[in-house]
């Protein structure tokens, strides 16, 4: 849905009075529901509903020969598909630049936090290692896919169990009890800027009129492990500070939700 200037001006006018269309506070997330194990064919899966935004993540394990430059490591790969099911703006065909950015931001958050020790995925050096693919597919886009996809990937990884291996081949019919040891829980929180206002978890209508955004992925230690600035307007260093603070605060709450549901 394209929003014209009048739509944006009205949104800003209301925002200046401290009000969002759905009456939420600036730092208020929508209702978050996480359901694990929703796709039985995956080794791990999770469905995330953030208000009306809905995504499904699935983890698949494969046994492959490791790359020559890292013979003692497995692979963790993240892919996001903006399925045309989810929005009139998403199309069939090669991924759009928005879909590529989305996948890379989620991927970076996981990768840079080193939440999985890739050496632990090695089965036999130079010969066999676990290749783990996390695929996230959109079902309904009502804004803030960046956070929803990041949370779905984490919940699916928490749900994942290694499949059984028979004579060096994966038997996808049976799962073992062994899960992935997650060293960190990197939580992405994207803060959106509208003139001098900052808010989080926008709906689609709010998202399309934003000036800029910053995705901050944080760890429980308070460290930041990934950043991505988006949007066409600049942000000041003062704003970056506020955005990081907001992300840290919200990340703490979201981490508790993820750990509780495990």
């Amino acid at each position, binding site marked *: 849905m394209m929003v014209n200037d009048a739509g944006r001006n009205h949104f800003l006018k209301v925002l200046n009075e401290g009000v969002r269309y759905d009456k939420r506070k600036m730092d208020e997330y929508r209702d978050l529901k996480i359901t694990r194990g929703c796709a039985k*064919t995956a080794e791990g899966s999770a469905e995330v509903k953030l208000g009306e935004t809905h995504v499904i993540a699935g983890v*698949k394990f494969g046994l492959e020969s490791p790359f020559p430059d890292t013979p003692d490591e497995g692979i963790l790969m993240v892919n996001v598909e903006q399925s*045309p099911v989810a929005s009139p703006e998403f199309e069939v065909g090669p991924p759009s630049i928005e879909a590529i950015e989305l996948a890379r931001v989620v991927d970076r958050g996981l990768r840079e936090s080193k939440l999985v020790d890739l050496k632990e995925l090695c089965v036999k050096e130079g010969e066999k290692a676990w290749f783990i693919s996390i695929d996230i597919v959109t079902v309904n886009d009502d804004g803030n896919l960046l956070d929803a996809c990041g949370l779905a990937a984490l919940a699916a990884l928490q749900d994942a169990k290694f499949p059984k291996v028979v004579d060096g081949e994966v038997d996808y019919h049976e799962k073992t009890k062994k899960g992935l040891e997650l060293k960190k829980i990197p939580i992405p929180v994207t803060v959106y800027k509208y003139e001098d206002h900052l808010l989080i978890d926008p709906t689609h209508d709010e998202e399309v009129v934003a000036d800029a955004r910053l995705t901050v992925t944080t760890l429980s230690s308070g460290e930041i492990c990934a950043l991505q600035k988006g949007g066409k307007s600049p942000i000041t260093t003062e704003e970056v500070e506020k955005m990081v603070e907001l992300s840290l605060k919200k990340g703490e709450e979201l981490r508790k939700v993820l750990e509780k549901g495990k």
Partner: protein
Amino acid sequence: MSYDKRLDGRDFDELREMDASVGVIPRADGSAFFRMGGTSAYAAVYGPRQTHPRFLQDPAKGVLRCHYAMMPFSGAGDRVRPGPSRRAKEISMVTTNALLPVIDLHAFPNAIVDVFISLPQTDAGSRCAGICAAALALADAGVPMNDMIGAVAVGRVDDKIVMDLCYDEEAYKDGPVADIPVAMNHRTKGITLLQMDGEISKDMLMKALEKVKKAMDKIHEKQVNALKDKFKEAKAEEKPEKK
């Protein structure tokens, strides 16, 4: 050897447990979720909207275009690579043809109705679950239709005709297997999709198709209830305001 008992314990004519609901994707003009056992499908309808690419545009009537896609982790084995495969393209085409006979294309000349099907998990019968979901989503979107479409796979495992095969039955090793996905319109039971792989005699095929008609009524009931439920919910929401 005879196939005396189904691998999952069902009766030979018994369908797997079904779930159906509509309006599950708010951004779409119509949407549905349909689950048959371990196979789940989302369908979303967008349109009638402007036709892209333009050469498809027809001033006499509208266009229906279905698109079938498995989520990468929805297969029984390895990861399914995203993007259209030959299999997905063919299923998209036969799905479109399965639904076309009940759609009034003359109601939206020049425009296109897109139906996107996405499956989070599959355990055989994915094109059938996709068609059941797509028909529901079209009805939910208010696209003019003169009937409902249902779909199910019938088949033979060894000496028995079985309804709604699961993956383990399709892969049965101790005897011949045939897998026959069928779609029908509700009122006249016209066949709008028919495919088969495996081996089967003419007699067994005709018996199997007769059995499908009964199964279709059960699927239809589930679909109608899903559509009615949406309006029940809408009515319940309306009531307090009237007071």
